């Protein structure tokens, strides 16, 4: 059986462009959720999000003619490939799987809004294929010369994590020795309005696991990791960040927007990933939680973790309290954060957690990062439709 290792990382986040600002932001516990500047938010309950700052976007080398999301994706993918030290020949054999949801919808909305209001078809029409989530994989593969399998996975909020899981499977199955896996999403009006309509957004920066939590905060960004067969990585002298031990994918088959009340699907994703890794639950020292800050989601995740791990000794935190929920990018950003947690021996905190919910009796690392020598960590992502993904990483030693 192949061992799959992580040999490169790349990020665009509300902290800016690059893995370094991402980790510095997370580990400092600085919340990057601010008023939205991208579009009008008047009349909505929540008007904030984790937005990628304009100066960071301006600094991206990617063409301004591309969609905002494509520019995020390309910048993060480039960083990951450079970080992994891949040659052009190695890139030519690499595949890519991208988790996407919104695609270039932000630009399509601008066009459609204008057309609906003026009654005329604006001359600047976005390219149809740039609207679709698959645009990110197309752009990344073309610009980086990736000649292996190219896929776009849409699993709502678990898309980014699913891309990592599916890419690892392709390596284990011998279909590709090297994969770029990640997630990309930019804020869109439809997403912002939809979660407002569902009354799932907190007017203030979200507070996962807090007694007084009132919903999530949106975010945006992109993250990629280079996954590689260990023998292949060793052959080219790469030094892994971590090993991806396993993944678990499951479906609630219960409700389109609500999680299963007994956390059935989430428990199966977690236990499947443990079984595939051949690990007892007690070996997992830290969980990078899905942790959206909605009443139901946090309760369900805590229920599942309690049933699998018990409540004693497990550390858990929610990156979304710092950068918001970046939708399709979230699972990939959190996978990168989990790898960096193992690498640096520091757990990024859960921000805004002033009054821990007694129904969530875990140590959720409130406010301040904590040094902890964790050997095995899990990253959880759950999407609309009850589409659940758990990833297990091990520190590289």
């Amino acid at each position, binding site marked *: *059986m192949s061992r799959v290792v992580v040999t490169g990382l790349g990020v665009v986040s509300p902290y800016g462009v690059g893995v370094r600002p991402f980790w510095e932001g997370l580990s400092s516990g600085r919340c990057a959720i601010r008023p939205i500047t991208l579009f009008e938010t008047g009349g909505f309950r929540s008007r904030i999000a984790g937005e990628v700052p304009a100066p960071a976007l301006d600094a991206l080398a990617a063409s301004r003619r591309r969609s905002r999301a494509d520019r995020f994706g390309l910048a993060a993918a480039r960083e990951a490939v450079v970080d992994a030290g891949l040659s052009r020949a190695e890139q030519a054999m690499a*595949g*890519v799987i991208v988790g996407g*949801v919104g695609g270039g*919808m932000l630009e399509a*909305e601008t066009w*459609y809004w204008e057309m*609906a209001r003026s009654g005329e*078809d604006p001359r600047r*029409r976005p*390219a*149809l*294929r*740039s609207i*679709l989530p*698959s645009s990110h994989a*197309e752009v990344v*593969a*073309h610009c980086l*010369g990736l*000649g*292996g*399998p*190219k*896929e*776009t*996975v*849409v*699993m*709502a909020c678990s*898309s980014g994590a*699913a891309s990592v899981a599916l890419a690892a*499977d392709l390596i*284990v*199955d*011998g*279909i590709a020795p090297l994969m770029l896996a990640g997630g990309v999403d930019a804020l869109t*009006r*439809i997403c912002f*309005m*939809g*979660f*407002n*309509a*569902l*009354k799932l957004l907190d007017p203030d920066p979200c507070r996962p696991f807090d007694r007084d939590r009132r919903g999530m905060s949106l975010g945006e960004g992109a993250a990629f990791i280079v996954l590689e067969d260990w023998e292949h990585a060793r052959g080219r002298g790469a030094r892994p960040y971590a090993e991806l031990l396993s993944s678990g*994918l*499951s*479906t609630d*088959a219960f*409700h*389109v*927007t609500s999680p299963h009340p007994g956390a059935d*699907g989430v428990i*199966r994703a977690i236990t499947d990933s443990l079984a595939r890794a051949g690990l007892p639950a007690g070996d997992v020292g830290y969980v990078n939680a899905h942790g959206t800050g909605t009443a139901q989601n946090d309760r369900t995740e805590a229920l599942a973790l309690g049933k699998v791990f018990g409540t004693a000794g497990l550390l858990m935190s929610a990156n979304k309290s710092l950068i918001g929920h970046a939708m399709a990018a979230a699972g990939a950003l959190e996978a990168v954060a989990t790898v960096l947690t193992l690498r640096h021996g520091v757990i990024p905190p859960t921000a805004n957690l002033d009054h821990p919910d007694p129904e969530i009796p875990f140590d959720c690392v409130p406010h301040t990062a904590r040094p902890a020598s964790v050997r095995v960590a899990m990253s959880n992502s759950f*999407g*609309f*439709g*009850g*589409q659940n993904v758990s990833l297990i990483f091990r520190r590289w030693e």
Partner: protein
Amino acid sequence: MVSSPKQRVVLTGVGSLSALGAGGFTALGHALEAARPAIDAVRAFPVDGFGSRLAGEVPDGALADLVGRDEARRLSRICQLTVAACRLALRDARMDPGVDGTELGLIVGTEFGDLRSSQEFADGYLKKGPVGLSAMIFPHTVMNTMAATAAIALGAKGPSVTLNQATVAGELAVAHGASMVANARMSAVLVGGVDEICPILYRMLSALGGLSPMAGGPEGCWPFDRRHNGPVRGEGATFVLLETLEGALRRGAAIRAELRGAAWGNSPVGRDRAPRSDGDASVITRALARAGLAPDSVGWAYLSGTGDPPLDDWQLELVRRAFGDHRPRLTSLTPLAGDHAGLGALRVAAAAWTAGTRHLPGLPSLSEPVRKDCAFATGGGTPAGEGAGVIQGVARGGTQVALVVSPFDAESQ
């Protein structure tokens, strides 16, 4: 370090709704035997002022007996198509996911998802402001809504994955699902694709030159013919049930065909371009190698053949390079049903039918092939001859998928 596939993968059920009609394996066989093109003028909405007017639409009323009244009220049309096709496939395979359902996965390929719901959701806001937004419609704006609603309707609790891809989303779903079963991650997976025609999509595709007649002339679907000038859009959902040979035999399922090999890759070019002759020609070869078959053992091939000239040209070049002097008989289903993500699994289901009947539907209006060094199935169809079949799909942007199907040989267990 490469793990060998652990399981043989067989196809045991088909569910399809397309312009050719609705039904399972037998109904599809009747439609393929008739090989009657179902492309006609768009009925669902006016196309006055558009550059195109043809499509392959799902017949009116096809959904009526396949989704319940409550589902018809709650679910968008594309979700109804998905649920109905998945149900037909399970019924065809005589499989009940049962109370557990954890061993049934679902992979849905789509090119455009539920664009109709996205437009409806946005229009609510544009007409009435925030109070016009529907919390019911919003989840359908995310492309995984078809997989989510189908998993709920079927009780499928294994992975449910949506793959977004131009032209070959269905083939990609089949390839990925086959890999999942072959490597013992799931014992059974429903795989396929779905797309629907809606006014905004048709209007955009037409305005952006994505449909026939791309460069003027008469409108029509003529893959591999000198008249080819763009795809004609189709719609529908087709799913096939793939399962381990062991599982299929254990439950006494009728095995329609064996999926022997799959490979997929990319020739990196711009998103809207088709590679020229320098594109990766090894995908078919790799699929055959996985199947343990030589190129000359392939008797026939279902190609994506959309009628998009650069894609048609690239596809035939790849086929010629993979097979050399050997000339399998080539066909495409787009002239019958129009191009859509459901067509990938429809091609796989059709290949299973051809593997069993040795009949290959033809290209109904091929009069002047773009290449003389390829053998095409023409007219109503031709005998397929002995041997395995290949399904090959190519897309702008450089994605290609190859699948190898053969009759199930009970002797070789």
